[in-house]
């Protein structure tokens, strides 16, 4: 291990301690549960201080500059997206297997030898597993880029404790107004919080904005997001995704799949606004 790696490891462990301390009166995210997760209490995310992983894999479906990407899916989330495709793990994170950090560090090394170009922390939501991710970063060698694959709905402490340890923030910007965010994601003050966190992340790392285009949400969600990006971050990499999957029992969420022609219109709109698309 070289000196730089040693410093990164030590810094990650120090920050992991701070993140764990924050769990004693948890306010990692805007839900501000103010409960003691280290004493076994569980917050909105369904988590105490146990870090659980429900899937790890080498994945080729992320943005082209990130693949093959070693995904580590942490259980538990601070949003309740009606269309979530891994909801079963986020509703019941306690059934996912507890992470053995040393074993996972070995798995990360193995995945790098298999060709992983990035180490990708996602969930669920990585922010509510911050203490675990920092512990993990303290154990691995930083040979490849580290990706924070997040809904960006978290409090300032998360940005502070990840700053300098994350190479790419893959920001999932889901809704373009607070009303849709409240109804579809169960998130209050969504726009203010997510915009602020995206801008903060862009101040110290690469950012890729991902938006899954939802049928029927062009004017209320897609357009405001594109307009904000064009104004505030015109050079940011934008990943527009057409893979919305309607839930089997949709209430507020769109019930249909996105049509190919609608996706083409979306791409044309983004290009007309001067935004830089990435695939």
């Amino acid at each position, binding site marked *: 291990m070289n000196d730089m790696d040693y410093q990164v490891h030590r810094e990650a462990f120090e920050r992991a301690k701070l993140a764990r301390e924050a769990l004693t009166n948890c306010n990692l995210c805007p839900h501000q549960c103010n409960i003691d997760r280290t004493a076994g209490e569980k917050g909105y995310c369904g988590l105490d201080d146990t870090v659980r992983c429900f899937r790890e894999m080498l994945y080729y479906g992320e943005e082209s500059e990130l693949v093959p990407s070693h995904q580590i899916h942490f259980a538990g989330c601070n949003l309740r997206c009606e269309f979530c495709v*891994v909801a079963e793990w986020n509703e019941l994170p306690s059934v996912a297997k507890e992470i053995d950090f040393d074993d996972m560090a070995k798995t990360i090394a193995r995945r790098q030898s298999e060709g992983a170009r990035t180490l990708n922390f996602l969930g669920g939501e990585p922010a509510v597993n911050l203490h675990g991710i920092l512990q993990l970063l303290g154990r691995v060698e930083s040979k490849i880029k580290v990706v924070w694959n997040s809904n960006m709905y978290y409090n300032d402490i998360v940005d502070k404790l990840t700053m300098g340890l994350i190479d790419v923030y893959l920001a999932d910007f889901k809704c373009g107004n607070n009303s849709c965010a409240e109804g579809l994601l169960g998130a209050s003050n969504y726009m203010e919080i997510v915009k602020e966190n995206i801008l903060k992340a862009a101040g110290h790392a690469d950012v890729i904005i991902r938006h899954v285009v939802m049928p029927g949400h062009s004017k209320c969600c897609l357009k405001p997001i594109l307009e904000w990006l064009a104004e505030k971050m015109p050079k940011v990499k934008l990943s527009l995704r057409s893979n919305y999957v309607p839930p089997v029992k949709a209430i507020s969420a769109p019930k249909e799949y996105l049509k190919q022609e609608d996706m083409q219109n979306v791409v044309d709109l983004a290009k007309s606004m001067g935004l830089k698309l990435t695939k």
Partner: protein
Amino acid sequence: MKSEPYKRKPGDFEIRILNDGKVVMIAPDETLIEVAHAVEPSKNIMPSKKGDKKECRKSNQRNRVKN
């Protein structure tokens, strides 16, 4: 068949066959992607566990959405 939609439990797979014949895999894990490749290897590339290049059906990778 039950009239109510099936609610997945942790560990379940879900594959949907749409009216137009498209197959949608919900949050596929590695095993499911390998199964899809075995069913129809075509245009996209995925490696085997040994790191060799294989082809993989495009739709398998396209239809995965994070929460």
